[in-house]
């Protein structure tokens, strides 16, 4: 049985295979072609935490492939409020579906789910841990927009400590031979184990506190949300958030061909004027979630 728990479980070749398959899914994801690949199959999306893009794109992916979706978003109307364990919930739900997509606030929840599920489990984010499908759709976007997946200078900007998407993305990008710049406010730096990994691979670029320092040599600026609740002082939050705002002025100092990505939701990290600029790729990135998740579902359910 194939589970999708951590991007570390994928070899470089396997990642490329997923991205190639996703490429084949694009016209179906756009509604320009139809597919019955997963007709008669059921996907359970069990989300113990809020989500917009991840849940809707998984549901769209399953519907586009002709399958059905069951599940819940939020635990208020479920037996979880009665104290049911995750183990029991997963054991039960896996009897109703051909695969389980799980989002949970605790790290390691997806790994636990694999021990109790009778069908494949796909990790849709577990606490501050892994979010492998986000990493795969980020890689798909980078390859589509730049035509390659290696030899790029990628600046990860914002909250690199708690932002769950950037840890596994940084490691995956390093495996493909890209240089990673780390730009974060003090106290929100990338965890030591990730920085050590990048350094060991020879792929750590500049680690600094201002996007200004790296913009001239950045092919991809990957912005993340700086969460207000990480700052005890609101004035300090406003000051830091201002320094990390991506706007036309900052982008004007970047090289031709620079693109801006963001896992969304954004708050103030990217000003609305950027949306109409050719560098803005974050809504394309959000769409790419559908073909990439179609590719994964076809592999774990359809045995493709």
């Amino acid at each position, binding site marked *: 049985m194939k589970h999708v728990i951590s991007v570390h479980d994928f070899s470089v070749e396997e990642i490329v295979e997923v991205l190639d398959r996703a490429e084949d899914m694009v016209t179906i994801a756009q509604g320009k072609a139809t597919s019955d690949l997963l007709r008669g199959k059921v996907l359970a999306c069990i989300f113990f935490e809020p989500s917009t893009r991840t849940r809707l794109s998984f549901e769209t992916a399953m519907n586009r492939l002709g399958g059905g979706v069951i599940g819940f978003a939020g635990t208020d109307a479920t037996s979880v409020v009665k104290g049911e364990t*995750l183990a029991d919930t997963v054991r039960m739900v896996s009897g109703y579906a051909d695969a389980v997509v799980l989002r949970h606030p605790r790290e390691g929840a997806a790994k*636990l789910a694999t021990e109790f599920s009778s069908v494949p489990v796909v990790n849709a984010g577990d606490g501050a841990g892994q979010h492998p499908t986000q990493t795969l759709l980020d890689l798909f976007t980078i390859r589509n927009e730049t035509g390659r997946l290696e030899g790029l200078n990628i600046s990860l900007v914002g909250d690199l400590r708690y932002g769950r998407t950037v840890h596994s993305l940084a490691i995956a990008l390093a495996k493909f031979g890209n240089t990673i710049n780390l730009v974060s406010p003090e106290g929100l730096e990338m965890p030591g184990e990730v920085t050590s990994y990048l350094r060991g691979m020879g792929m750590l670029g500049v680690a600094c506190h201002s996007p200004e320092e790296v913009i001239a040599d950045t092919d991809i600026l990957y912005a993340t949300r700086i969460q207000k609740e990480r700052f005890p002082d609101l004035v300090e939050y406003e000051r830091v958030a201002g320094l990390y705002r991506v706007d036309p002025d900052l982008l004007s100092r970047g090289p031709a061909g620079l693109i801006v990505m963001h896992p969304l939701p954004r708050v103030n990290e990217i000003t609305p004027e950027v949306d109409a600029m050719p560098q803005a790729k974050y809504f394309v990135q959000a769409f790419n979630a559908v073909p990439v998740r179609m590719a994964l579902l076809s592999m774990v359910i359809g045995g493709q």
Partner: protein
Amino acid sequence: MQDNLMKVQRIEHGTVVDHILPGMAFDVLRVLRMSNDRSMSILINSHSKKGGKKDILKIEDVEISAQEASRVALISPQATINIIVDGKVVRKFNAEAPKVVRGILTCSNPNCISNQNEPVTTEFRLGPDDGHRYVCSYCERDIVDLAKRVRW
């Protein structure tokens, strides 16, 4: 030095755990689950011939097994185990740190799923480098303050 002035007498039968990291002797006792009614001597911050300090534990009438020794190595990887019979060392070996530890440790990440009310056994794997670090198989974090994470 005259015998009656020795800090700790030699033992006739039992186990001497030597080269314990300084200050860790009580934690070693804890992982060995030694009951209080045993006759034992504990030296804390004793001077080592190799330089520096170490703790030493002498437990009478108990021969600890290789499996028990591996629990010692969890928290004090340099420790050596000496089995004493009739006042002589009949076996001496280095405690070997286990590659996988199931059930003995709890994860130091409070948000790890293994710390919730779930029917799972904790599992930690020895990291591939020489840093003597254990990684939780669930949340993939390094365990912090390992000696305090050993279950009674």
